């Protein structure tokens, strides 16, 4: 890329300063990127483990609930669902991973869920409900990890773009500019030198002519 450059010592100094800054920034950003990727991989591993765990336990819970359902009348089951006094209260906090706000979720199950009629329900329902409550807590953990993964991925992309633009555009540009100015300055000093030599030659010649005449 051709830059508009003033070939002066002042601008040479300023370009050198800029280059130094850009290199420093590049190194810092690269370190940040590495750390982000490391955390990202750690989170993904955790996510995969938890995900498999939850999926299998959720399937077991579905089966238990199904057992409960077929041993009850539809009406009783619906009554149990609609009359449940339980409320899921969500607590939202946040923690920071590398300066990124990541949500942290916690759910509190309020109210006693085991307040249904014992004569109209069966033991499978107790079992299934206990499973569901356990799983819900884990599901929320999974949600926050998933969100953290997405947010980290976005940050990684952003940082990578910055690192690349520094590495492949900004730093080479500055280096080119410095090289260009150096060449220009050298050229100027050479031409000044030859000028001086020429002038000296002329002066010497004139003086000699004067002496002999």
């Amino acid at each position, binding site marked *: 890329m051709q830059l508009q450059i003033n070939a002066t010592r002042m601008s040479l100094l300023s370009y050198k300063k800029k280059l130094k800054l850009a290199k420093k920034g590049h190194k810092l950003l690269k370190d940040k990127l590495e750390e982000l990727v490391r955390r990202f*991989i750690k989170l993904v591993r955790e996510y995969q483990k938890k995900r498999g765990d939850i999926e299998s336990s959720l399937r077991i819970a579905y089966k238990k609930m199904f057992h409960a359902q077929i041993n009850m009348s539809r009406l009783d089951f619906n009554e149990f669902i609609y009359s449940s006094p339980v409320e899921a209260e969500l607590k939202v906090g946040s923690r920071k991973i590398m300066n990124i706000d990541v949500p942290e979720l916690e759910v509190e199950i309020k109210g006693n869920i085991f307040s249904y009629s014992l004569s109209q329900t069966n033991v499978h329902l107790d079992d299934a409900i206990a499973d569901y409550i356990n799983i819900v807590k884990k599901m929320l953990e999974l949600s926050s990890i998933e969100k953290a993964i997405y947010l980290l991925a976005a940050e990684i992309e952003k940082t990578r773009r910055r690192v690349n633009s520094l590495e492949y555009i900004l730093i080479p540009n500055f280096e080119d500019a410095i090289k260009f100015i150096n060449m220009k300055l050298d050229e100027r000093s050479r031409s000044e030198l030859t000028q001086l030599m020429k002038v000296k030659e002329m002066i010497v010649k004139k003086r000699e002519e004067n002496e002999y005449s």
Partner: protein
Amino acid sequence: MSQIAIIGDKETIFPFQAIGFETLIADAENVKEIFKKAVSQKKLIIFITEELVLFIEKEVNNTMKKPYPIVTLIPSVLDSEESSREDIVKLIEKVVGPNLMKEE
């Protein structure tokens, strides 16, 4: 009103109502509207079954960039196979390059 919504077929999500989630019963045709409604109601977390998410991938991807809502997939009663989390795998490949996670 609960801040947690769950979208899916009736069999899967009905029991979650007992735990205090807001259950939104949906099928392939109206899942888009229901999801939009849930987002506009400022639900913090939306669980959605894997079969239904296929119909609204674009909408779900739009929410990924914002802090909320958090959309999480759950398996439904009907599918029994191991789920494949395509989007997460794609994301990993985009960020760290392929083959990095497979060594486990």
